[in-house]
Structure formats: structure tokens, C-alpha cells
């Protein structure tokens, strides 16, 4: 039974009101971004939302940037590519107008595509792609991966091939680094400072103070000393090659950010009733609110439930424990039930505590399911709880 129904024994289950808040999102949103810490069922939730929307008649695509290829497993696919592929399984493609595609983001490939798009010509693109500093930058700068996911998301959104895009973020706090990434990347690529670093004597503009001049000269020395001089040459070549591409890049980043803030986007925070996962969920909700991103719903997976059983007095329990095999079994069953009830209550308390910090957040609670979700059948069963 659904934990959202009234009157469970664990008492005062958090109820989200009539209809799942996810149903509205899956019917009308254009973009759903799932975030949350690792191991909370985020990938399965994203896939189940996408499947439900597809079966409700929308052209849907689910994207993951998770390197462990979990979505691939959840969807029963062996390989995802950097372009959406139709999910082929029993019952799919869906009857009617709906469809479900899936893709796993190749972050590096996406960055390369961005470079190719904004380069003047093939020669400029090739010079950048071959640069060792670019190769490091494209795979290691904090938030780059997340930002590239948003870039791909935006590209698919612009293509209008889909009614709904569902994206699964990486399982870390840095999942929301993409909110900063446009700024970081822009500052880096704008990089007047970097040009100073590379050629401090020639490039210093009018506005720079003498102190900064000295500092950058010293900086150049230090970077040479710390990293070796070859790297610095690569950095110089990178910025030379990048000349003129900056404006297109910056404009694009702004568009992506605006789309994320648009009311047709919804962020879904996914958690389990585990203390650490709920603390992470609170962090994500706070972070999204601070950036005024549209927070759609909280999904709490793997809720334990205990149905009501009359309290059995201690004396009767002792008689059971001292009785025959079935009596002892019943005493054990009661103890098991007590443990389950205590766990269910503790979980509800933690969920309520979280909700108290995030006003007006719709919540969907999904009970601990009997089986891991690893195929479309599992996703549909999960969907029944998500959209009940």
C-alpha cells in the first residue's frame, strides 16, 4: 500500500495532498532535473518519471551523466551514446504519440562539440582540441562536467525533438556546480588575467596597477616552478587559439542558465529516509532556492512501513516466548514488528524535520520495494508509487 494513504501504523505519514506533485510535472514540464546524493535511487526515479511521461503520450528523453552507466542498467541498455537512442523493450515504443529515448552524456565529446560549434573554422577547432591544456580543462575543471550536461540538455531542448527532458545529475554535492560553472568557465576563458600570466610585459592594459604587474610576474615564475614550463606554453597556445570564441560561449552559457530558471523547468530532489541523505536533500533544496531555481518536488525512496498491530503486553510476550514453537515464533514476529515500527517512525520524523525547513515542497514517499529496479517492469512499478 502507498505510504501516502492515511492512517498507517507508523502514524502521521507525511501526506502531499491530492495527486502526486510529480504527475503535474511529468505532464507539463519541459525539463525535469533530478538531484540528490548517491545511492538514493535518483537514476531509477529519473527513468521512471521519463517512462511514465512517455506512456502518458509525451515524446520524452532521459539523460544521465553518471559514469557508472547505471541508467543503462536500469533501462536494460548495454551502451548509451552521446546522442539519444530509442529505448527498445517490451511495450516500447509506446502506443500513441509518446516515445522514450535515453542517452548517456559523454562530457568530453560535448565539450568538443561546443568548441566545434563556436570555432571560426576547422583549423581553429583542431588547434584547440589538440591542446593539452584544453584536454585537462575539459575533464577536470570543477563543474565542467555538470555544465556540459546542461549544455547538452539545452541543445536537446532547442531541437524541439522532445516534449520532456529528464536529466539525472551526478551523485555528489558538486552536482549543482553547474549553477556556478557558466561563471567559472567564462571567467577562465575571458582570462585577461591569464594573458597577463603568459606574457606579462606586453599585455598589461591601462587599468592595471603596478602591484598586479609585479604579482603576475611573480606568479609566472611560481607557476613555472611548480608545474614546469611546458604547461605554461600549452596554456598560452590555448588562449591564443581560443581568441574570438569567448563571446559566443558566454552568450550560450547565459541561455542555458535562463532555461534552468524558467518555470517550465522543475528540479526534483531525491533522497532516502536515511539521515545523511536527507541532510544532503536539505542542502540541495537550499542551494536551489538561493539561485531561485524552480524546485518541483521531494521524492523519498525506500520508506519503511509498519501496519497497525495491537500492543501486546509484556506478560503475554513472556508467555509466548516460553511456549511452543509457534508461540516463540510469534514472539519473534512481534519483536520484528516493534523494530519496523520504530524505524518507520524515525524515518517519518526525519522527513518532517526536513520539510519544516523547506516551505511548500510537495513530497512523494515511495515504500521500500521488494525488488531492485533494473528493467522497465521495475520502472513501471516504481512509477505506480511515484505517481499514485
Amino acid at each position: 500500500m502507498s505510504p501516502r494513504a492515511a492512517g498507517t501504523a507508523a502514524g502521521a505519514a507525511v501526506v502531499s495532498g491530492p495527486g502526486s506533485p510529480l504527475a503535474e510535472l511529468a505532464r507539463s514540464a519541459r525539463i525535469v532535473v533530478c538531484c540528490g546524493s548517491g545511492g538514493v535511487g535518483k537514476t531509477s526515479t529519473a527513468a521512471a518519471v521519463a517512462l511514465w511521461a512517455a506512456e502518458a503520450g509525451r515524446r520524452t528523453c532521459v539523460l544521465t551523466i553518471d559514469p557508472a552507466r547505471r541508467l543503462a542498467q536500469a533501462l536494460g541498455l548495454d551502451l548509451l551514446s552521446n546522442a539519444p537512442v530509442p529505448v527498445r523493450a517490451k511495450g516500447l515504443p509506446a502506443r500513441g504519440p509518446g516515445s522514450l529515448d535515453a542517452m548517456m552524456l559523454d562530457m568530453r565529446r560535448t565539450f568538443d562539440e561546443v568548441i566545434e560549434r563556436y570555432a571560426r573554422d576547422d583549423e581553429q577547432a583542431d588547434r584547440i582540441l589538440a591542446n593539452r591544456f584544453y584536454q585537462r580543462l575539459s575533464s577536470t575543471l570543477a563543474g565542467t562536467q555538470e555544465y556540459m550536461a546542461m549544455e547538452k540538455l539545452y541543445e536537446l531542448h532547442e531541437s524541439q525533438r522532445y516534449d520532456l527532458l529528464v536529466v539525472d545529475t551526478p551523485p555528489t554535492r558538486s552536482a549543482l556546480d553547474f549553477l556556478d560553472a557558466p561563471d567559472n568557465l567564462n571567467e577562465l576563458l575571458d582570462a585577461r588575467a591569464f594573458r597577463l600570466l603568459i606574457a606579462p610585459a606586453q599585455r598589461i592594459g591601462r587599468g592595471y596597477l603596478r602591484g598586479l604587474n609585479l604579482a603576475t610576474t611573480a606568479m609566472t615564475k611560481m607557476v613555472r616552478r611548480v608545474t614546469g614550463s611546458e604547461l605554461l606554453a600549452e596554456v598560452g597556445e590555448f588562449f591564443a587559439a581560443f581568441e574570438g570564441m569567448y563571446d559566443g560561449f558566454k552568450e550560450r552559457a547565459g541561455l542555458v542558465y535562463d532555461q534552468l530558471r524558467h518555470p517550465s523547468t522543475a528540479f526534483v530532489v531525491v533522497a532516502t529516509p536515511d539521515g545523511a541523505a536527507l541532510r544532503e536533500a536539505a542542502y540541495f533544496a537550499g542551494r536551489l532556492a538561493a539561485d531561485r531555481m524552480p524546485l518541483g518536488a521531494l521524492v523519498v525512496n525506500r520508506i519503511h512501513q509498519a501496519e497497525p498491530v495491537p500492543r501486546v503486553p509484556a506478560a503475554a510476550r513472556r508467555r509466548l516466548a516460553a511456549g511452543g514453537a509457534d508461540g516463540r515464533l510469534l514472539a519473534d514476529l512481534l519483536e520484528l514488528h516493534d523494530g519496523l515500527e520504530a524505524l518507520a517512525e524515525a524515518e517519518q520524523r526525519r522527513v518532517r524535520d526536513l520539510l519544516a525547513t523547506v516551505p511548500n515542497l510537495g513530497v512523494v514517499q515511495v515504500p521500500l520495494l521488494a525488488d531492485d529496479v533494473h528493467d522497465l517492469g521495475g520502472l513501471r512499478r516504481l512509477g505506480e508509487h511515484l505517481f499514485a
Partner: protein
Amino acid sequence: MLEVLDQARLLVVTGKGGTGKTTVAAGLAVAAAGRGRRVLVAEVEGRQGLAGLFGRRVLEHSEMRVAEGVNGLAIDPDESLREYLARYGFAPLARLLSWANLNRFITAAAPGLGDVLLVGKVWEAATREARPGLAAYDLVVLDAPPTGRVVPFLRAPETVAELARVGPIRHQADRVRDLLDDPGRTAVLLTCLPEELPVTETLEGVAALREAGLPVAGVIANRVTGDRLGGRAGRLAALARDPAPLAAAAAAAGAGLDGEALARLVGEARDRQRQVARERRLLKELRAGLDGLPTVELPFLTGGVGGPGEVRALAAHLVPPEEATARDDRPPARRAAGAGSGGG
């Protein structure tokens, strides 16, 4: 698991997100301290995950005592960079430029340098000597990044050193590698849950770590459901079909349970049995895939409240109390075993 707790100088604890990596790292630290070792437990991701487990709000970038025989440390990337710059004589420069600018310069000019500094700090603590010939710590437990990122993290010194063929980074990279690659001093442990995707990811993680030449020492299967009804599944199935004997037992004891309540109790127990059976199957798959690598099971403890009680309870499961006090052959700085026992 006991061997690495007693012998390793550096325990690297990784695992898929959500598998209890940080709690297990804390439990391992307390368990090793219970066996008389002087332990440092360190985190590197700026999450402050360890603090609450030791009943504190935050851990600092300096080592502080957090439990009997255990020091705690939250290694901060910014602070590590400051220390690094100070060591190489760049403190005046750091004062001249704003910190944010300086940091951006350096991390962009040498991506991965942040990880290099974090790994370097761990290496420093693991090899530090209190006085010549006496290690400052017997064991450093590292709450490392999750499985997907742990290899690039541990290999960051190598990666950066490829770019920087000269200078202090190259020099340090070699020494870090010596420690990390040495199965006599370093042991990598992975936390796992008895669930399908974590089992798959653990097997992938073990393969990736081995391929990188890192010494994988074992897997800790966390939050394994207890099986208190073991051997009675058949009886439960029979009672689900015909609850009359259970009703008779309840009536005889005056338990006041009607047929509906009994059916619920049996239903819950059978759900639990199915859960146990599924976990058994997955743990069997895990062991088969690990091909002889040791695995340790830790029980599900009241839903991950996360605090000193849970850490003590995990430590007690890692080292049963009778074994915690068994070692008396370590002369220097042996601690009382108290920290490792206790119920939680």
C-alpha cells in the same frame, strides 16, 4: 579485515555513494584504536561527514582528538594550497593577490593540483615521524572520494607529474606512489550494500583499482538485514496459508491479536525473509565476482541515524569485543580498548 586493521599504515575507504563509506571509515578508525593503534581519520571532500559521527559540529584542517586513540582531520583544499605555497616560499605572493584569484590561477593552470595537495597531505600524515624511527600515527584512515572518482584522485600526483616533469610536484608524486602502491603499507577497502547496482559498481570499482595497480584489500558489505527468523521460512509459509496454529498460540498466551493482526505480522516477516534471501543472493554474486578477496558483513543499524553510537556499534562488529583486548604484544603507546567496545 583484522589483518589490515593491525598492519596497514594507510587504509583508503571508498565505495559507491550512499553505501556508508564515511561511517565505515569512522568505524574502522575506532576499531583500530581499540586494538591499540594510534589512528588518524581524515576526510577530503569538504563534506564534514566525519564531524557528526564523532559528536562534533565540524572538524578542522588541523588534527584534533575525536575519540579514544583517534584523531580527526578534515583536509581543506584551500588550506592545503596555502600550506603548499608557504612551504615553497610564496607567502608574500599570496598576500599580494586576492585568494580567489590565486586559487583560480593555480587550479586552472594545473588541473588536478587540488587532488595532488589533498593526497599529499594524507601521505604526509601517514609517513610523519613523531621522532626519528617512531611514526606519528600507526594508521591513517582516509574517507576517500567515491568509487567513480577514487582512481583519478589517488593517481592525481602521477597525472600532474606527467605535465610537470620537473620541480617539487614530480618529486612528491614519486614518494606518494611508493606508499600507495605498497600492499605492505596501503590497503584499499570498498564499502558496498547488498543491492543490485552497488554490487555491480563495487565489482567495477575493484577492477578499476586493480588495473591502476592499487592494493585492494577487501570489501565491506554494509547494512545487511539481520535474519532472526532463519530456518523458519517454511513454517511462516505454512502459517500464511493456515494461521490457525498461530491464533491458538496467541490465544493461549492472552496476546489479544486477531486474525488480521496475525496476518500482518506474518506478512511483515515474510517480506523480511524475501529481503534476506535477496541480499544473500546478491552477496553470493559479490563474493563470486571478488574471487577470493575478503568480505566483511556489517548489520543494518536502525536506519543510519549517524552518530557516535552507530560508529561504536560498527567498530564492535568489525572487531568483536573479546578480540579488541586480546592483543598485548604492542609495547608503545598502547591504549585501553574501551573505545572499540560498547553497544550503540
